[in-house]
Every structure is written in C-alpha cells, then in structure tokens.
C-alpha cells in the first residue's frame, strides 16, 4: 500500500497544499482532505437530509465531485467551504428527487418511513400531541424533524446554512443560485414555516431574555 507522503501528514500543512499535491497526482493527499472535513460535511448533510443514510451518501458524493472538479477550485478559497457548497448542491438535488419520487408513489401524501419526506398535508392530517406528552416522551424532537421535513429543499438548505452553518446571505444565495434578496426571503419563509409548525409545542424561554433586547 502506498504510504502517505510525510510532508502531507505534518500538522502545519494546510488544505491548499493538500489540494496542490492532489492536483499533482498524489491521490493520498486527497485522503487528508477527506479525513479532515468528513465530519463537518456529515453534520450539514444530516441536517439537510434528515437521515443518516442519505447524509452519508451526500458526504461521499460531495468528496467524489470535489475530486473531479478540483481543478476548478480557487486555491485562495477555503476548501471546507467549497466542499460544503458542493454537498449543499447535491443534497438539494437529492431532496428534490426524493420528493418527486414520493409524490409519484404516494400522491395523497403520507409520512415516509423515516418521517422525513412528508407531504405538507400530512401535518394537518396528524393529530398534534399535547405539549405535556411531547415533553414526556421526547416527541418534541420528532415534531421538529417533522417540521423541517415540511420545508422545500431550498428553504431547508437556507435554514440549515443560516442557522446551523453560520453562512451569510451571499453564500446562501450562491448555493441556491438565487439573488441575495431571494435568499433572504427563503431564510425568512423557512423560519416562518417552522414557527407555524412548532409554536404550539415550544414555550418562550421567558425570564432569561426578559432583561435585554439582544437575544
């Protein structure tokens, strides 16, 4: 087995050097990038897709695409952000595809086995459990997953990138291939939908914030 070149393994080496070595034909250098960024890409992918199996597929595909497109990578950019964007794009495609397959299979709209790809009508059809029951049985988490599943792929991407990825509006706009104002509006719509779905189950944190205006 080919050994990783020692210069790639040293802690001070950065992504740019690993990219450069990969472009020069050193495939093991790409392994460094995969090992370094897989977990953070997985977190993003899980939040976008809502299940582990799809998230793992997104991670693998993102790195395969990154490898194929590596020549397009601007060496001055951050490799993590770049692969993150590739993963977002693939996850959007995957979610849209799943959604359209679901729609074909179950036009009436029912919850999928993993509770992720639901038709919006399912929310209305489901009897909302009481907050007490939710709190006792840990169903709040299921309700949140359910609420997230009601977002369109673009809304979910925008929400995940904004609230969990800390991305700016410009970055989200780039991932969604939309204008900044459209991206901003998509972020708003996502929060609005989540509020509508979750407000009955969530109590304001109250006094902790009562004294200040900055949340």
């Amino acid at each position: 087995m080919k050994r990783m070149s020692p210069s790639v393994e040293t802690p001070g080496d950065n992504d740019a050097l690993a990219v450069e070595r990969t472009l020069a034909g050193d495939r093991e250098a790409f392994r460094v990038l995969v090992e370094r960024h897989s977990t953070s890409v997985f977190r993003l992918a899980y939040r976008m897709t809502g299940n582990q199996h799809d998230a793992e597929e997104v991670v693998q595909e993102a790195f395969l695409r990154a490898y194929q497109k590596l020549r397009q990578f601007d060496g001055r950019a951050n490799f993590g952000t770049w692969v993150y964007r590739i993963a977002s794009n693939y996850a959007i495609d995957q979610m849209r595809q799943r959604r359209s397959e679901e729609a074909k299979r179950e036009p009436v709209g029912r919850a999928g086995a993993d509770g992720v790809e639901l038709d919006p009508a399912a929310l209305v059809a489901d009897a909302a459990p009481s907050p007490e029951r939710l709190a006792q049985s840990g169903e709040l988490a299921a309700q949140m997953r359910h609420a997230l599943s009601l977002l369109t792929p673009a809304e979910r991407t925008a929400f995940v990138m904004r609230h969990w990825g800390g991305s700016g509006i410009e970055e989200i706009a780039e991932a969604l291939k939309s204008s900044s104002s459209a991206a901003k509006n998509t972020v708003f719509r996502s929060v609005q939908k989540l509020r509508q779905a979750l407000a009955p189950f969530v109590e304001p944190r109250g006094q902790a914030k009562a004294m200040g205006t900055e949340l």
Partner: protein
Amino acid sequence: MKHPNEEELIAYHDGEVFQREAIAGHVAGCAECHAELERIDAVLAALNTMTVPDPGDDYGRQVWQQIAPRLRDRKAHWWDFFLVAPNAANWLEPRRWAAVGAIAGLVIVAFLAGRFTRRGGPEPIATDASQVRERVLILAVGEHLGRAEMILVELANAQPKNASQKQVNISAEQRRAENLLEENRLYRQTALKEGDTALANVLDELERVLLDVAHSPQEVTPAQLKGIRQRIEARGILFKVRVVDSELQRRGESAKPSPAPSTSQKNERNKV
C-alpha cells in the same frame, strides 16, 4: 419606530445589522414585540437542541475507504505547473524542475528543427515558430469557443418540456461546461502570456459563466434558469464569444503562411 414585522424581527434575531439599533430600541420598550421576539427565539432555540448522530472518530477514514476505489487516478499534466498557485517552496520540487526541463527541451528541439528544415530548402513554406504557435492557438481556441457558444445557446433556449414540469434538467449542459473549464483556463493563461488581453478577458468572463453553470443544481426551476440566463446576458458573453470566434476564424484564414499579423490585430481585438 412602528412595530417591526415578523421578517424584520427574524432578521434582527439572526444578527442582521440593518436598522438594528432602531429595532433594539423599539423592542426594549414594546412588550408585544419583545414577546414576539421571545417566541421566535424559543422556536430557534428548540431547533438548536436537535442532535446530529456522532459518526465516530473514524468516520473520515471510513469515507475515504468507501470513495477511494471510485476515484480515478488523477494524472499530473505538465501544465499543472502553470495552473497551481505559486508557492516559494514548490519551486524547489523535482517535479517542477522536470517540467521546466521538459519545456526548455521542447523549445530547443523546436528551434533546432526550424533551423534544420530551413537549410537548403527552396522556399520557406513554414512560417516562424510564433506564427505557427499562434495559428494552432487560433484554431484550438476557435473550436473551444464554438463548443462554449453551443452550451450558452442551449441554455438560452432551455425550457420545461411542458407547462406542468417545474424543473428544467440542465445536467447535459452542466457536464459539458465542466469539461470545457480546464481547457478554458489553459487558453486564458496562454492568451495572457501571448499578450492577447482581449482574448484573455473574454475567456475569463466565459470561465465565470461556465463555473456558474457547472456549479448549478442538475435540475433548476424556471426562475433559477432565468437567473442563469440573466447573468449570461448581463455579461454579454454570448455576443463577445461570437465576435471573438468570427475574428479568430478570419485570422485563421489570413494567417496561413505569410504576413506577421500580431500586434495590430491583437490591438484591434482588444477593443472588443
């Protein structure tokens, strides 16, 4: 200030700076808006408690094992030497010196071959090396621009197959754009080296458009497609590509054996 609406409160919660002080001042004195802000915070805080399964410390290695057999071996090309961003330490690598040596060798061979073939011949049919190089570049870039133009035209005309279809599949154009990117970059750098800034500029703009297409989702909504088209139109790239392409064709015709073209023609195109 009047009551901020829901969108403004959500943006404020997200850290939006626009009207931040005004909204903060209002919320501090308005129980209704303060309560609304707390409700927004409660939902987002609850969502933050959602856990993501820990894929394990070994996850990166697992991913590598799964994708490694699917990676094609990436062959290093001699032009990688020029494409990769310069870094002082890299100049010392043997691979780089090998590339320099190879290029220098080619230049010497071309020079000697030129001298040898000229000696004793009746009429020098071949033109000088720079003319040959320029002609090869003209032909190659012309062909490249023709392929790029086809992609742009196809995108300009793409539309859903029927009214009920909400997505337009542009995966074919996307793949072709990806394939053109690498050579586009190479031609751009060569044009720059040759001092043909107009061609380099058009290729630079084309590269941005190709990147835009290559990074788009495989299926786009009509609105997204419209956005791509607008970005193409805003750059006037299709027009520029056509102008440069036809000019290159003219040059290809006229540059066959004789006159040294370069400067004036390059200057003329620099006006594009």
